[in-house]
């Protein structure tokens, strides 16, 4: 559509005594047709879908960026609100065992201890069971049982934390206090880990509840990871005369080990941040003791219990700093787990080895 007029004319030296009126008017003419009116260009863009596309893509990108914004906002809010405590205690906050709201002296070590020990114990209990169930459902289970059992185990994940807590308070706590506890004391008492006084509430009970809660996570993700092991690998092992267990060990567990570790870490992340059920059965007492029957306290439960009662800015900011620590730890744990799971499931068709 380019007019020949719109091509810029080569400027020649014109004596400035001559006023090139005709050239000026020609310039005006040459501008007009190259620049369509705003309305025209809008209509053009609209008919080719450019306006809708631009607006839609903008909204969509905003939605995607909102995820970054949420994470940054959480980090900012946590840091801004815990500044008081960070300044007051520095790194000592994570090494001090004192938690004394009255004198305003705060240290998070007992809570870190409680969180780590209860989560690790839960993982220790849940992992063998979860892997066995995953193997059972994938390799051993008859077809007609597979659906119902996997549905049931996933149902475990759908039960809210507070309901586990309720069950824990009224069923598990008496059970451990009156039945399981004495037996364990008799046989494992010599380790010093299971000794009186056993009130039923404590580290061990919390770990059992946590193990039940993180089991579905570990089981379903490790099942997904095992499933992407190529069938040819299984067939190869079987063709060499391996028994079923040898086939599982050689071709499935070996190939899927990175992803399985990822699923375990993911379960660990879930256990670290679990709040309600743990708060209801762990006894809420900030102490570092060897006895697993003794009451303990975790990072998440101290926030849940004391946040609304926190008097004074320093108390509140110490609690928020605990939240910050919890947030950072779970972010790191989850990031590692996701990377490991990705490493396995990502290019599942590309895998040959």
């Amino acid at each position, binding site marked *: 559509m380019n007019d020949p007029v719109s091509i810029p004319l080569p400027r020649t030296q014109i004596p400035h005594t001559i006023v090139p009126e005709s050239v000026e008017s020609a310039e005006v003419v040459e501008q007009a047709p190259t620049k369509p009116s705003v309305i025209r260009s809008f209509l053009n863009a609209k008919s080719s879908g450019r306006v809708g596309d631009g607006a839609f893509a903008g909204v969509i990108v905003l939605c995607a960026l909102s995820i970054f914004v949420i994470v940054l906002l959480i980090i900012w809010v946590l840091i801004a*609100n815990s500044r008081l405590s960070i300044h007051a205690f520095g790194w000592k906050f994570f090494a001090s065992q004192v938690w004394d709201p009255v004198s305003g002296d705060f240290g998070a070590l007992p809570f870190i201890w409680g969180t780590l020990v209860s989560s690790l114990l839960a993982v220790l209990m849940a992992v063998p069971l979860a892997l066995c169930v995953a193997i059972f459902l994938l390799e051993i289970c008859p077809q007609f049982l597979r659906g119902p059992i996997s549905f049931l185990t996933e149902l475990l994940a759908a039960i809210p934390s507070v309901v586990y807590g309720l069950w824990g308070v009224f069923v598990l706590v008496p059970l451990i206090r009156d039945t399981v506890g004495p037996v364990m004391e008799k046989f494992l008492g010599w380790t010093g880990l299971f000794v009186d006084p056993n009130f039923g509430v404590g580290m061990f009970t919390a770990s059992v509840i946590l193990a039940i809660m993180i089991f579905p996570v570990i089981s379903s993700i490790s099942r997904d990871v095992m499933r992407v092991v190529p069938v040819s690998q299984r067939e190869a092992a079987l063709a060499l005369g391996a028994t079923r267990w040898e086939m599982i060990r050689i071709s499935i567990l070996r190939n899927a080990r990175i992803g399985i570790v990822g699923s375990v870490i993911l379960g660990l992340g879930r256990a670290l941040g679990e709040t309600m059920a743990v708060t209801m059965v762990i006894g809420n007492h900030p102490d570092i003791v060897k006895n697993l029957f003794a009451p303990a306290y975790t990072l998440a439960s101290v926030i849940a219990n004391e946040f609304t009662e926190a008097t004074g800015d320093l108390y509140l900011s110490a609690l928020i700093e605990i939240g910050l620590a919890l947030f950072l730890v779970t972010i790191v744990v989850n990031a590692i787990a996701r990377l490991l799971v990705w490493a396995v499931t990502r290019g599942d068709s590309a895998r040959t080895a």
Partner: protein
Amino acid sequence: MATLPVRSSQHEWLLKARRNFSNHLMTALSILSTIVVLVPLIAVLGYLIYKGASSLNWAFFTHTPVPVGETGGGMANSIVGSGIILAIASLMGIPVGIGAGVYLAEYGAGTILGEAVRFTADVLNGVPSIVMGIAGYALIVAKQKHFSALAGGVALAIMMVPTVARTTEEMLRTVPHAVREAAFGLGIAKWRTVISISLRTALPGIITGCMLAFARVAGETAPLLFTAFGNQFWSTNINQPIGALPLQIYVYALSPYDEWHRLAWAGALVLIAMIMVSVTLVRIFASRGALKGGQH
């Protein structure tokens, strides 16, 4: 290279027996652990139904909590409160989540930004819910100087976004490329293709994802502790503290009164029933969906 070790037949037999034994042992262990895992599940559900059903009555749905010492009372305000909080959370969380999912599947696939968003969403998914509660508190409650249903809704909405985004993305990925190309071939703009073709085809799956996210946050207590805060009285004002079913269960479970324990069990049963109903609906939706297979 070296010669193969020569084994006596007895040695062979022992080896075979050992291999067979470990095979059977591990099979038995797997079956046993599946049973062991199903026990707590059945124990939790069975005890819950037994205790809950015996404590449930009509007053539970129609009355508000009564003071200590009086019998009766219910959780009508908490049920309605939960509904309000969840409605706020869904209204905010689901559209943003679907938008982010569309970005991941249709716009950002393969780009660095797309990978980063996906990774952040996965990580955000694992952030403890109590931290969301702190965020809701600091962002809204601390500014407004009072607890509110709105703050609770925001905290839950933040939890819904990554879940909805990831399931939407996975569902959109199951839509065949040919369908999209057909739409482009007809000269339909991309935004229109996304809305009317991709989202439309993947709709059953996306609804599934939204319901799962909904079911997940419906039972959350920790983020509501210091945002919605709970309320013993009837309130539907989203600017005021509001009761929520999980909060009420928590408070009643830790109280020393038998009557309140009874109500806690009834509340737990109602909560589970609400979640189960939505999960079952999800199953029906998913099995009726246009896109079967391809998904796990």
